[in-house]
């Protein structure tokens, strides 16, 4: 039966990708607008393509090098280490390396599809919104669903295919590591790119020269719009692809670690959840509609809720008809419900409809310092619901599973993480909608479309910001549960090699590991944010140079050289990744090989706890500052030009790298570190100094 599920999984994945292709061509058939609008869109398209080319070139290099290392390391039968004779199995090493490459390539294809359609849909959405709000919304959302459906489809094809062929979840772990390697490059690189361009465009454009946002006279305006795509479409998509695969693989590994006749059944169970999630998302997407006077934000939320309900029915049917233990139902549902609740509580801290944003805007009249203090404080408070949600999901799933006597408690946590991410198809569709409508608004401005179009695009854009905030809360919480499961999987893998893992705070090596792990997320955040500021300064110089050398730019008579800014942002983002990438991959290995498996366990614990807290704080505080500024711009507390607005702009600028560079990249950091540790756990168990 399990083999049949794997085949169903591959077919479901193909259906999902086919649906993505169908939506791709549906979007492409929509009106691409005037020559001017198409020209503006082509600037963004070319910029995005040039960045992707650089990113994928870097990825190819990383894949080749990492694949080579993995092929060599996993060619040795490490269970034999220390016995005096070591078996060499080159086939296993090569399969593991291919699995790694497949993970990276799948994630890259999903990202590419998402980007390819996003840069076509932006102009089409701007043109469609001229007719009706719903039409513009539909174009953007269906384009977003290309990314969502392609992502889950390719992930499920990859995981089911590899497990079907090898029957070994550890090989699927290689697939997950490949996806994570790309996610780290895409998410952190995209985050650095987008904020470099955004900050440079704003500081020179708005502050020095005094031209408005999205003004075509700004040489960095195209890079800014490209950044929305590379950061929020390719980056966020790769991030959720990574969490989605990692959570499934972690649960599979924990299922495989259980003993008894149903081991295979529960190893495949997480994959079945993904399959059901695909169909729930496919149905849910059909319900996302904006009525005549409807609101896009509500339509997106309704789509998410309907998808959850459908998925809930599916999982109930699966558990009862498939004879699975009831604890798996509770674990899945608690993960799903907590994921949605955490997503929506994020909205409370970042939406201008609630107290935190309003209060921060109100105090901004007294200066930027108090804006920063209040936003930071609410950012810290925003940790509370997410952490409580993670704790509830962890405790409920653990104890319900333990009490069942059928599955292990830690397996329940893994299933809970999969439950949370099972509707990723829908979540990513909503998330990718955000940058598309953001671009649509920019194109409407740059192409000089009438104000009513810009106004309607603004309405779409506002819903996109909320969707983005919800996705971030959702993905951070899911990543937290995923890494908890990976953490358990790490211990299982080590102990399977006959080495016991004792993660006790009475052990100084563990304490050292905890401190080093706790240090990693802040250091990673600092490196990525410093990259943003350094790269932004290079771009600022370029923008100033262009204004200085060609006065016709500001007069609106000569087009600026957009390509140089695009190239600067791309080059800067990729070269800045060396430090953060070493931290993510090199530091856990260094700790493991020097301090041993116990210390690495402590390291992961420290990194997970500070990583989740920093990710929530930075994402939510950044979102809050952004919306506080926007709230003031609606005419509150003095509106544009007031002291409150000036302080709001400072808060927003501080928050930009928080929410779009460092914060969301931390998910990927802790997932990559957990995956590296799990993947190399057998080697670390055999080789370490202490």
């Amino acid at each position, binding site marked *: 039966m399990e083999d049949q599920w794997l085949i169903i999984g591959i077919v479901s994945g193909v259906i999902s990708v086919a649906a993505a292709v169908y939506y791709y061509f549906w979007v492409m058939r929509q009106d691409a607008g005037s020559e001017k609008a198409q020209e503006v869109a082509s600037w963004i398209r070319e910029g995005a393509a040039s960045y992707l080319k650089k990113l994928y070139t870097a990825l190819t290099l990383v894949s080749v090098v990492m694949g080579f290392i993995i092929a060599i390391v996993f060619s040795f039968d490490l269970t034999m280490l220390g016995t005096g004779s070591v078996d060499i199995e080159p086939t296993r090493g090569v399969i593991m390396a291919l699995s790694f490459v497949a993970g990276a390539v799948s994630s890259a294809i999903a990202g590419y599809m998402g980007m390819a359609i996003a840069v076509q849909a932006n102009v089409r959405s701007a043109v469609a919104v001229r007719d009706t709000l719903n039409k513009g919304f539909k174009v953007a959302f269906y384009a977003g669903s290309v990314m969502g459906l392609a992502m889950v489809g390719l992930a499920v094809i990859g995981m089911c295919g590899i497990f079907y062929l090898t029957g070994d979840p550890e090989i699927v772990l290689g697939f997950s590591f490949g996806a994570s390697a790309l996610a780290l490059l895409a998410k952190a690189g995209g985050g650095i790119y987008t904020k470099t361009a955004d900050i440079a465009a704003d500081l020179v454009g708005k502050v020095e020269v*005094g031209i408005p946002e999205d003004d075509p006279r700004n040489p960095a305006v195209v890079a800014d719009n490209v950044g929305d795509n590379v950061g929020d479409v390719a980056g966020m998509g790769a991030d959720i692809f990574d969490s989605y695969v990692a959570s499934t693989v972690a649960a599979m590994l924990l299922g495989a670690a259980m003993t008894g006749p149903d081991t295979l059944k529960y190893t495949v169970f997480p994959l079945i959840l993904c399959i059901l999630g695909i169909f729930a998302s496919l149905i849910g997407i059909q319900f996302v509609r904006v009525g005549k006077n409807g609101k896009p934000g509500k339509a997106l939320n309704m789509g998410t809720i309907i998808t959850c309900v459908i998925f809930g029915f599916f999982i109930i049917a699966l558990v009862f008809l498939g004879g699975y233990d009831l604890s798996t139902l509770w674990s899945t549902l608690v993960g799903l419900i907590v994921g949605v609740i955490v997503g929506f509580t994020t909205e409370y801290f970042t939406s201008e409809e609630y107290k935190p944003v309003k209060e921060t805007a109100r105090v901004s009249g007294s200066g930027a310092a108090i804006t920063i203090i209040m936003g930071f404080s609410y950012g810290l408070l925003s940790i509370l619901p997410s952490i409580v949600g993670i704790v509830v999901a962890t405790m409920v799933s653990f104890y319900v599973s333990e009490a069942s006597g059928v599955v292990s408690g830690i397996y329940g946590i893994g299933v809970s993480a999969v439950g949370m991410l099972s509707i990723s198809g829908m979540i990513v569709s909503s998330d990718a909608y955000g940058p598309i409508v953001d671009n649509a608004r920019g194109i409407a401005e740059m192409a000089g479309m009438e104000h009513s179009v810009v106004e309607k695009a603004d309405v779409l854009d506002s819903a996109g910001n909320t969707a983005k905030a919800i996705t971030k809360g959702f993905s951070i919480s899911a990543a937290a549960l995923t890494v908890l499961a990976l953490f358990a999987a790490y211990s299982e893998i080590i102990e399977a090699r006959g080495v016991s893992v004792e993660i006790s705070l009475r052990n100084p090596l563990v304490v050292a590991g905890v401190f080093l792990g706790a240090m990693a997320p802040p250091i990673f955040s600092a490196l990525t944010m410093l990259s943003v500021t350094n790269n932004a300064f290079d771009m600022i110089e370029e923008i100033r140079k262009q204004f200085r050398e060609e006065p016709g730019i500001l*007069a609106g008579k000569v087009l600026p050289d957009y390509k140089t800014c695009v190239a600067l942002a791309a080059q800067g983002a990729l070269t800045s990744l060396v430090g953060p990438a070493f931290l993510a991959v090199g530091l856990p290995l260094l700790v493991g090989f020097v301090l041993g498996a116990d210390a690495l366990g402590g390291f992961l614990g420290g990194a997970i706890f500070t990583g989740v807290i920093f990710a929530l704080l930075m994402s939510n505080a950044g979102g809050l500052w952004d919306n506080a500024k926007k709230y003031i711009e609606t005419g*509150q507390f*003095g509106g544009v*030009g*007031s*002291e409150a607005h000036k302080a709001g702009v400072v808060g927003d600028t501080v928050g930009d790298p928080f929410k779009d560079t460092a914060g969301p990249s931390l998910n990927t950091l802790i997932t990559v570190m957990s995956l590296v540790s799990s993947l190399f756990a057998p080697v670390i168990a055999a080789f370490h100094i202490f």
Partner: protein
Amino acid sequence: MTVHLYLSLIPEALIASMLSPEEFGAYYAVGTQKKSRGQALFFEVDPKFRSDFFNVEEGIKRCVPHEDGSPKASIYISVYRVLENVPMNALQKLYLTTQDGRTLGLDKSKSLPGNGTGLHLYREVAPVTPLVVSSFGPKDFYELIVKEPTSLIKLPSVCFAELRLDELAEDPRNGEAGDLPYKNIEHLRSCLTDLQTKTVMTKMVDRTPTSGIPFRTIKNGFFVGNQKKLLHYPLPSEKELVEKYYPWWRSATM
């Protein structure tokens, strides 16, 4: 090339230029090298205008294209006491240029608006630039400071804009300040309250406002007058600005 005469209000100057009003506004706001920025307010002056006070002919004579054929941007004819020496009937359109060089032209109104109710906030543009509150409407305010002053201060001419006070106009102590971007709102409230509680008709809020003129809070346009006449240049409604002059409005509301 046609030579235009412009009466700039920031700073007060009479200028001959070969640039059209829109080009002149952009040039005046951000310069030719785009190293500076700042609002500009200027009238186009009747090209036939001549006066013993200004050597207009000489200015026009010097306003010739550059060697490369590009138009001469500006020849300053005078930079002092200009407004008081240009008759009101020589003033044509008033142009408002935003900090990044977008220009909007305003036509004169055939009639003056009523004084309205409540308190008023005026931003004087020339010859001096204070921010003043008054219980007088625009017409009475002009008469108070130009025609029939009750104090020792008398201006030969004036250009000012009335700015929105919204709820503060009726209830300075408790009214909502809403989207009014003025600095130190508490001080503004206190000045307005003084108008209601003390026997003063005007009160200075700020002697040297450092920020530019907040175009988006202009209530009913600009007033310019001398001893003989008061002119009114109404600003289009926000709806009209958004629909017809969106690039200017967008820049003005930054």
